[in-house]
């Protein structure tokens, strides 16, 4: 019984972090129809920003989080202008952009590797290795803080999308681009801004990742399929769906890991991705197959 509770706690904590990692990806797909395979590599870029802030000046990763988010959002705008703006009107848009984001991921990986080498790193504030005990069951404080921070950010994002004027414009553009344009929304600007917000979320997620996992530039390949599984299961473009999918899959993966060994816990995500694409490509919460 204790082991079940323990596994559940670890799964939920991990789910919180994955939820933030996936929500930026989901936002960018929803508004721009870009399947951003570079998202995980940008998360790692955010992790490096946080790592150096902590290492050089001793700034707490949670304080670095908004800084990483802003830096990455700026990178997002540059990327959009350089790489994606030209493609935004091509007919085979989504397929072409998958290859473009894939190439972008390689650029980010290569740049990070060139600057910081391929050694494994981890940011180590005190709480990262601490744990809170309830009898024999424990909650690792690092993951607890990361999960809570993630939920706060996602909550703020949800409030922004639901209640702000610009947030409404983003949601409107996601649901019906032409209609939004006809009502006076500058959809191109909404596109750039949501791309920036999405990449900013990657930066924020990177800050959390930096003390929850060890990371190195090439690590993003593992995460591509993990994050895609969350976003596809959640129904491409639905942020709420992505969050729920993160918790579901992370809990399943935690149990698979506990009973069959940690190797197979990442297999859970890959197999899930495979199965969802084949059985229910519109995801749990999507209404129509968006990726077809």
């Amino acid at each position, binding site marked *: 019984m204790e082991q079940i509770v323990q596994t559940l706690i670890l799964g939920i904590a991990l789910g919180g972090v994955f939820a933030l990692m996936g929500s930026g990806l989901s936002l960018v797909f929803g508004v721009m129809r870009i399947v951003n395979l570079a998202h995980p590599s940008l998360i790692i870029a955010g992790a490096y920003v946080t790592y150096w802030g902590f290492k050089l000046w001793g700034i707490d990763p949670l304080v670095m989080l908004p800084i990483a988010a802003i830096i990455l959002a700026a990178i997002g705008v540059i990327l959009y202008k350089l790489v994606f703006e030209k493609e935004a009107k091509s007919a085979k848009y989504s397929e072409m952009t998958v290859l473009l984001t894939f190439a972008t991921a390689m650029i980010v990986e290569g740049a990070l590797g060139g600057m910081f080498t391929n050694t494994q790193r981890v940011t180590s504030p005190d709480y990262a290795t601490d744990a809170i005990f309830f009898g024999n069951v424990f909650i690792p404080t690092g993951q607890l803080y990361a999960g809570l921070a993630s939920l706060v950010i996602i909550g703020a994002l949800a409030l922004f999308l639901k209640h702000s004027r610009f947030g409404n414009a983003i949601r409107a553009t996601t*649901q019906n681009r032409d209609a939004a*344009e*006809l*009502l006076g929304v500058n959809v191109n600007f909404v596109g750039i801004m949501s791309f920036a917000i999405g990449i900013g979320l990657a930066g924020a997620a990177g800050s959390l990742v930096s003390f929850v996992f060890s990371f190195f530039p090439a690590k993003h390949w593992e995460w591509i399929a993990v994050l895609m599984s969350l976003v596809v299961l959640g129904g491409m473009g639905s942020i709420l769906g992505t969050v729920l999918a993160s918790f579901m899959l992370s809990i399943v993966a935690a149990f698979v890991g506990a009973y069959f060994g940690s190797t197979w816990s990442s297999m859970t995500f890959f197999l899930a991705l495979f199965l969802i694409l084949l059985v229910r490509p519109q995801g749990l919460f999507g209404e129509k197959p968006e990726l077809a």
Partner: protein
Amino acid sequence: MSQLLEVTSLTAGYDDGPAILDGAHLTIEPGKVHCIIGPNGAGKSTLLKAICGMLKIRQGDVKFKGESLKGLRPDQILRKGICFVPQERALFPKMTVRENLRMGGYSLADKSGLERAIDEIEERFPILRERRDQHAGTMSGGQQQTLAMARTLIIRPEIVMLDEPSLGLAPKIVHEMFGIMKMMASEGITILLVEQNALMGLKNSDWGVVLDLGKTLFEGPAPEVLADPRIQELYLGGKKAA
């Protein structure tokens, strides 16, 4: 100059495709209901899309109060006071009715009166108040069309362009939609209507325009267009229609 909107020898089409509109012209007078009729593929919807900026104008010009709209984006044209309700009704299916109305006021520079304007709309269209927290995508076709038309009123536009408001609706509901349209016209809004059901459209209009093969063939007061034997034979389903 009594024309509000003037379209001269307009050529337009989709992406790299052939020109759908090939030298169409049109003059819109303020305060009247104009109805464009013509067979499928004549370029009726294309004309509206070109006016509102969704399609690039290849040749010719569209002038609003003497000022060219060429090269402007849809959001810029909307801010000049031209509103377009496309066939698909341009709603946000997963936003509530109230949120859809609020999006209708997105282009307003002054937001202070927005909530009150929405309240007024809800008063005039009780069904929208009743459904205010329901997702727009879950409403019936007639209710969606009502929402789409009512939403244009929020920004007090000068011209409202309606692309087949009757599409897929039961006759009784269609009658209601034309009622809403006439009410808008009575408030001084100029209407540009595209209607597949030519008879019905012309009967509810002041001015009729016949468009075919991308060109304007004929225009005149709606009763004259209705009575013209050539038009009757070609576009109104034979002489017996009269």
